[in-house]
């Protein structure tokens, strides 16, 4: 055989009987795939070669082989039915003699009942799982709140207990004359502010606290209200180390704060 020529009959016979070495067999197979005439002739030759199986002394496999095969088939069918989605409804009108009702074996009912029980148990467990997850989430949030509160308290204590902490009293400006506050400032530990009678802000506003240094621009030490850290009316902020404070100012700014005070002042105090 070469190029577009057909494979000779004797070569096809050798191929059919399995007598060709692999490279030759592969080359012929490739040709046969594209040549219907050689394909037909090879099929004929294979049919002749297959007759050799009849010459063998006939024997039977153990009965367990068939039993295992049938069990394997059933398992496969069940697996396919389980995995089929959407489920295919198969009508088998000719698979059974007429007038004979389809047989439903007891284990089919048993399996159906077991499946129902499993589904109910699964639903129950799923519901319980969701409830526990929600409880866990609530507990986690509660724990985070407690940790945050503890950190704040530690900060207050750190500032309030330090011997070199100074106190600055804040007074309300003209529009908020009733408002007042006290700042406890420690250049190393931070700032603690207690404010009273501050009006409630719009949701898009925050109180922003500023440290006014002896020289230079005011420096933000934190936000109070929406977007800021607050604990009751007390509040703790941080300052750059060793800052000298001339005074403190509280202004009303946009939520999230600004770099330099732009809004109206509500509390003002100097050392």
């Amino acid at each position, binding site marked *: 055989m070469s190029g577009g020529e057909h494979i000779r009959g*004797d070569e096809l*016979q*050798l191929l*059919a*009987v*399995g*007598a*060709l*070495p692999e490279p030759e067999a592969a080359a012929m*197979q490739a040709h*046969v*795939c594209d040549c219907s005439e050689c*394909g*037909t002739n*090879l*099929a*004929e*030759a*294979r*049919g*002749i*070669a*297959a*007759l*050799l*199986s*009849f*010459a*063998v*002394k*006939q*024997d*039977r*496999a*153990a009965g367990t*082989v*068939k039993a*295992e*095969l*049938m069990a*394997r*088939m*059933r398992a*496969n*069918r069940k697996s396919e039915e389980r995995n089929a989605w959407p489920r295919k409804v*198969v009508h*088998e009108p000719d*698979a059974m*003699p007429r007038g004979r009702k389809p047989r439903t074996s007891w284990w089919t009912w048993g399996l159906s009942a077991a499946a129902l029980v499993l589904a109910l148990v699964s639903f129950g467990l799923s519901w319980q799982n969701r409830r526990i997850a929600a409880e866990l989430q609530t507990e986690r949030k509660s724990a985070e709140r407690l940790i945050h509160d503890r950190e704040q308290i530690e900060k207050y204590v750190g500032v309030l207990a330090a011997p070199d902490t100074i106190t600055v009293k804040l007074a309300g400006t003209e529009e908020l004359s009733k408002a007042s506050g006290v700042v406890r400032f420690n250049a190393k530990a931070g700032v603690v502010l207690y404010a009273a009678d501050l009006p409630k802000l719009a949701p898009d506003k925050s109180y922003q606290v500023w440290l006014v240094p002896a020289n230079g621009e005011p420096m933000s030490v934190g936000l109070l209200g929406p977007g800021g850290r607050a604990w009751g009316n007390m509040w703790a902020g941080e300052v750059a180390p060793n800052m000298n404070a001339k005074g403190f100012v509280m202004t009303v700014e946009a939520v999230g704060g600004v770099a330099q005070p732009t809004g109206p002042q509500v509390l003002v105090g100097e050392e």
Partner: protein
Amino acid sequence: MTPQSPAGQTTTDWSLLERIGRKDEEALSALYDRYGGLVFSAAKRILRDTGAAEEILQDLFFHVWRTPEKFDRARGSLAGWLLVAARNRAISKLRRRDGASEELDENGVAFRVNVERHAAQNRIADKVREVMANLPDNQREAVECAYFGGITYSEIANKTGEPLVAVKTGIGSAMAALKKVVR
């Protein structure tokens, strides 16, 4: 026992295959009863190992169960396919290779005899045995070595001391003699 239709006719292989496509276990059971012995005997002849032959037998019929649509009626005979597939799988096992790579295009097996009944199988078996018995020893040995031993014509030549051409011609003659069985 050969399954029969209500009219007393034997259910054809293709009819069984069609039912297997609808996951009819009885149809596969019938096909197994029809050809299981032939398949098992051929595999056992090649492997000389009952357990390995049973494995091939079960795998082959499970393959039919899972993919009945792979068998194209236009391309040949189911009985022929089963016998060739059993032979190829057994040879692969003999060479300690993965059987899956040895599938070839087994669909293309034109089997010119109807062996759907066990009586027909016995008749064909008698004829084939007679043909084989009447072959010269070198021809019989060559074709059996190739088909059941999975060895090439050059290996057969080395084994028997026959010239290559004689081995090839011997296989050709044996095949020609077998062809008479189906005429």
